[in-house]
């Protein structure tokens, strides 16, 4: 087709080298986190550029101090994903296909929610959370964390579901399937990718949440890892090895998801924002 002068092979590998250098600079702080975690003995002193041995005592201390908080994060985040998808997926379908009066207003409102700062939500909801007994509960935090993913998921899944061919849905209806059956049997399976992307992001948003954890909890009962680490640096200033080990553990889900599901992540960043 159109002729394109091929770049000489040497120059292309030159770009790869430059790309690796860029990556090294960008990932250096994360390397340093791991490196510091492996030198728990350095305490408040300077950290060597490379760990001399495999000292895992920082990790074992972090696990015994923060293991429970990791589990709390996991439970709350999985719950938030469930709430988020259960609410957002039907709404996305309804807004994409039913042509209800007011759909546009709702989509508009969904976009608007992105500008409401979390601290304002926490400020206003704290009162109600106290009254409803949701403060210091897993369920309360789960609901608040779900709010981080719901607007994003609605926008993302709606833009996907709009593109499902109308004939597919009409065919299901001709077979006698009502809207609920059509949704569960036809629309959801076809929207698998959008569902996975939404779920992933809902998980990452909730896992990273710090503000709701900080403001909607007054005791130590429900403490996710982000809050755990924040309080850790207050209490263990001299023990950077354990703090960093806990940080490494808290970054593991992001790293794993990035490796396993990179195409969904890239799709989510572009799809959730531009569309």
């Amino acid at each position, binding site marked *: 087709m159109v002729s394109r002068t091929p770049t000489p092979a040497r120059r292309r590998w030159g770009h790869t080298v430059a790309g690796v250098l860029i990556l090294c600079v960008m990932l250096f702080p*994360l390397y340093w986190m791991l490196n510091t975690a492996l030198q728990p003995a350095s305490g408040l002193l300077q950290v060597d550029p490379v760990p001399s041995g495999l000292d895992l005592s920082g990790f074992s201390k972090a696990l015994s101090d923060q293991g429970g908080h990791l589990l709390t994060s996991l439970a709350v985040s999985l719950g938030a994903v469930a709430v988020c998808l259960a609410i957002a997926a039907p709404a996305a379908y309804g807004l994409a296909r039913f042509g209800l009066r007011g759909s546009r207003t709702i989509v508009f409102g969904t976009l608007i929610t992105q500008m409401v700062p979390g601290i304002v939500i926490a*400020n*206003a909801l704290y009162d109600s959370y106290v009254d409803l007994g949701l403060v210091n509960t897993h369920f309360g935090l789960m609901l608040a964390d779900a709010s981080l993913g719901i607007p994003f998921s609605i926008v993302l899944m709606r833009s996907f579901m709009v593109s499902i061919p109308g004939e597919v849905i009409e065919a299901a209806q001709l077979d006698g399937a009502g809207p609920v059956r059509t949704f569960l049997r036809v629309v959801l399976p076809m929207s698998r990718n959008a569902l996975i992307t939404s779920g992933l992001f809902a998980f990452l948003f909730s896992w*990273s949440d710090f503000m709701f954890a*900080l403001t909607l909890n007054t005791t130590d009962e429900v403490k996710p890892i*982000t809050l755990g680490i924040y309080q850790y640096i207050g209490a263990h200033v001299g023990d950077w090895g354990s703090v960093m080990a806990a940080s490494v553990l808290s970054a593991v889900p992001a790293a794993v998801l990035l490796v396993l599901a990179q195409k969904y992540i890239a799709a989510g960043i572009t799809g959730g924002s531009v569309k």
Partner: protein
Amino acid sequence: MTTSTVTAQAPAKPSGRAAAPDPARLRRRRTLAQWGFVVPAVVFMVLFFGYPLVRNVVMSFQHYTPKTFFTGEAPFNGLGNWSNVFQDALFGKALWHTLVFTAGSLLGQFCLGLALAVFFSRRFPLNGVLRSLVLLPWLVPMVVSGVVWRRILDQDTGVLNAFLGTLGLGGDTPWLTSPGMALLSVILVNIWIGVPFNMVILYGGLQEIPRELYEAAALDGASAWRTFRSLTLPMLRPVITVVLVLGFMSTVKILDLILALTDGGPADATQTLGTLTYQNSFVRLDFGAGAVVGNVLILVSAVFAVLYLRASRTEGK
């Protein structure tokens, strides 16, 4: 609800409306069932976004004290909170820090993100792998990034100063502990966090620009810089607007990073509207004052939300 919907639709099966006995009632039922899909989300968003917006305005006219949570009493006090907050010199400082933090972060994130997007638009081996690994800093919880950088930027034993020292570039910069430096340091860390996000969106935008345009530019003998300025940037404009406005809305409200790095200090040098709302409400338990600052924060982002909606409308055509 489910079964009635199914039976209600069944008679309409063969050829639609005409065969049904009472089309108006059926249609109403169907509409009701359809709203069933949307209502839970609407209720949730009203409770978690709409209600807080309204409540926050009301709260800003109420007098909260630490006792309020035992007595449940928060009497209205007119403009008391507003005048208290506005008279406090800290408010003006926080507003200024917020603007500097946001503008500085966006400028750095955008320029570096664009540079990386252009870089990764070229074809070279391992491009895809490298491009996705760059995302990692953006995916790590912000508090964690803050904690890690706090160690790196430590004046005496941090690796950055050690590195600068080896290069003979000083090496005793008080990154986070001097009021003159702290805001700049926080901005630099936030740039590091935001570059991947900017890169991914701008990279996506670059892929949409038709190749033929570049070939035409090359035939005309346009230099690389000229092509970038007269072709790439104008074609990228809608995406640039979206990335900047989205960046603004998420940056202006950042709280976790600042708390993890500096806790708003030293000497309130990194206090922003977000951290000030937090401190007023959840540290001093003066929720009325917190609500005032929160309202100002919303107002600031509302201006930019309008820009965003206008941008996304031209985007979607």
